[in-house]
């Protein structure tokens, strides 16, 4: 018996079992304690509450919502708002990042200096400080009657930004944009995936155009189907009495968050873009120049494709991080997924279930995004040893 303690296999089994038991025990203690607390408060466990009506309103939603609606709907709104803000933030941050990254890698010292100043300032200030700052700015615009206007189309007021837009339901806007994004993803896939290698470039181009046309058509159909019957299709904001009518109102919360994420994320993405271009070997560029390609061709056919492949894995992490950063919305009162969950916890007391939903939601969002980007990454990865620098 004594010798069994020194037997390595026995020890390994015991150690692993103990480790598992430790975590299982911790979870069990938490669940039992939560149960006891719930019973003390006469609350039920389980997910039945999802079909109870909430009794409270949200400040921002893409779909119709009334306080009599059930909890599952408000949670869905939260997820949609997080994705909506995330999508806007990611696109804007990428645009800013590409511009900054190009400035940081340019031959021109002055442009490089500008890019460096931008990155160092905005990367070293916490995102939430920037969110608060822009929110303070957004809520201090003049009242609607003295609004700052741009060309009579865009108005900046303390109640939000008014921009021209289509008079359609929020849901159809969401679905339409989703359709377009899917089409764009497919186009990238066609351009890079090995299974389309056999096609002639011209056939490929035609196929991509066809996909784009179908995507746009689907988007247009969804938009038209979702139009609000009593209003003109395109709305332009105009002052009616004390407020604006028509167009789209972007709330100060959404504007401040999207702006802050674009600027902060842009600084990080700028660095990633710079790193990607630095990873392209000199030999590749020199070889392209030796073949007599014009500078533009060297960029579009050699430097950019290679840099993109070096960037994508890091960019994936950055995108996942930015999606998680949307949870700062709660600080200024944007109803994102996290805020909806925390209000629900306050109102319903279903703490454990809602925390579970929160974690599951973020796991799904993050893994989904990572899976999509990793698929693209694998699809465009160069086979073999072509990335020699």
């Amino acid at each position, binding site marked *: 018996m004594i010798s069994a303690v020194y037997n390595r296999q026995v020890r390994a089994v015991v150690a692993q079992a103990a*480790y598992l038991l430790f975590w299982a025990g911790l979870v069990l203690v938490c*669940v039992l304690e939560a149960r006891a607390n719930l019973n003390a408060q006469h609350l039920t466990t389980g997910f039945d509450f999802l079909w109870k009506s909430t009794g409270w309103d949200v400040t921002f939603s893409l779909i119709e919502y009334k306080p009599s609606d059930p909890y599952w709907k408000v949670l869905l709104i939260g997820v949609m708002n997080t994705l909506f803000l995330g999508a806007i933030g990611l696109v804007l941050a990428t645009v800013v990042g590409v511009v900054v990254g190009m400035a940081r890698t340019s*031959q021109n010292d002055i442009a490089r200096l500008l890019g460096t100043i931008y990155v160092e300032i905005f990367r070293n*200030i916490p995102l939430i400080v920037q969110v608060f700052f822009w929110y303070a700015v957004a809520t201090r615009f003049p009242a609607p009657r003295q609004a700052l206007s741009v060309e009579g189309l865009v108005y900046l007021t303390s109640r939000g930004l008014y921009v021209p837009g289509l008079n359609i339901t929020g849901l159809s806007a969401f679905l339409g944009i989703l359709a377009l994004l899917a089409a764009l993803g497919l186009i990238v896939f066609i351009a890079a995936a090995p299974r389309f290698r056999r096609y002639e470039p011209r056939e490929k181009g035609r196929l991509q155009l066809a996909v784009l046309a179908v995507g746009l058509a689907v988007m247009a159909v969804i938009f038209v189907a979702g139009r609000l019957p009593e209003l003109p299709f395109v709305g332009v904001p105009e002052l009616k009495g004390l407020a604006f009518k028509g167009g789209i109102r972007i709330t100060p919360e959404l504007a401040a968050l999207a702006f802050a994420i674009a600027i902060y994320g842009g600084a990080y993405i700028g660095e990633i873009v710079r790193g990607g271009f630095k990873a392209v070997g000199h030999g590749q560029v020199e070889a392209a120049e030796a073949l007599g390609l014009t500078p533009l061709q060297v960029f579009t056919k050699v430097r950019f494709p290679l840099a993109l492949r070096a960037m994508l894995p890091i960019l994936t992490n950055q995108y996942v991080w930015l999606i998680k950063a949307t949870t700062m919305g709660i600080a200024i009162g944007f109803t994102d997924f*996290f805020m909806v969950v925390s209000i629900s916890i306050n109102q319903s007391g279903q703490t454990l279930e809602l925390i579970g939903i929160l974690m599951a939601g973020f796991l799904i969002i993050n893994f989904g995004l990572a899976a999509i980007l990793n698929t693209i990454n694998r699809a465009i990865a160069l086979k073999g040893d072509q990335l020699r620098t």
Partner: protein
Amino acid sequence: MSDVAAPPAPSILEVVRRRYFSSVGNTLLTVVSLALLGTILWKVLDWAVFTAVFSTSGGPEACRGADGACWSVIGARWRLIFFGLYPYEEHWRSGLACLVVVVMTVLSCMPRFWSMKAISVIWIGGFAVFYVLMKGGVLGLVRVDEQNWGGLALTVFIFVTTVIIGMPLSLAWALLRRSELKVVSRVTAVIIDSVRSLPLVSILFTFAIVLPFVLPDWLTGDKLYRAIIGSALFFSAYQAEIIRGGFQGVPKGQEEAAKALGLGYWLRIGKILLPQAFKNALPATINQFVITFKETSLFIIIGFFEVLASGNAAYGTGDWTFAYVEVYVFIAAIYFAFVFSLSRYGAFLERRMDAGDRR
């Protein structure tokens, strides 16, 4: 040496032309960048210096009619931003405590103190001094409880405590993660990945607000410390992966040689692998410190009065509501000073280590 004469050095004008005006596109870029840079610099300087009000005695009235920044707000409210609601007579303790942390950080940046023992002594000793200064109750210092801590001092406290708890924790995660026992490393990997895929805000929220609900009473503790343990857990999940990367950078032969010499597991880890792993992981670790310092600002969401919250209070009360830009610029500058210098130092170390590898 060849006899070929070197080409004549190009004139200054020629260099400038080649660099900035080599083509139409480049010329355009130069002009636009210069215009942008000039405009921004001029506007910022004009606002912050030339037309700004620096009087500290005048109160909000001094800024009436001024076009530029109203720095009087900082003069009037700097104590609130730095120390929050800490008792007024005891502010020197808060300030001294922050200085202790700065000294700690500077000391740990000196290679002469890079040993497990020295770093532990500096950090744990420094933390003890910091805590005694802040909390008091001994050595004739008046006792000040955690709920009255605030401002920059609280931010610094959150940061230091997170790191001190998080570092040993991350080491434990990393060792469990690379354990040869399949179940142990698998379970650890799942835990680390789950923590990493959640937003920090939700982890802080869970620890600060939900935990008392699911833990027996004797385990709950103070809200601030619960939140800090949450943030330390988050820190350690990321730091564990960094340390693991450091382990992977150690040549396989090192561990095999140590095994051949008959060293036991702890000796192998402590004397052979860890020093090398830490050295490999140093730049990424400093980067993680920078991120952690910035993330202390998220404590505002779960209701702590750290530097950002005290900044909001600084302009949100009294007659200073117009001076919000100045306060945010000041807070941004505080963060910038710490974060920028630390990340520069990290970049310098990385370069130095690269040079060492090439020798």
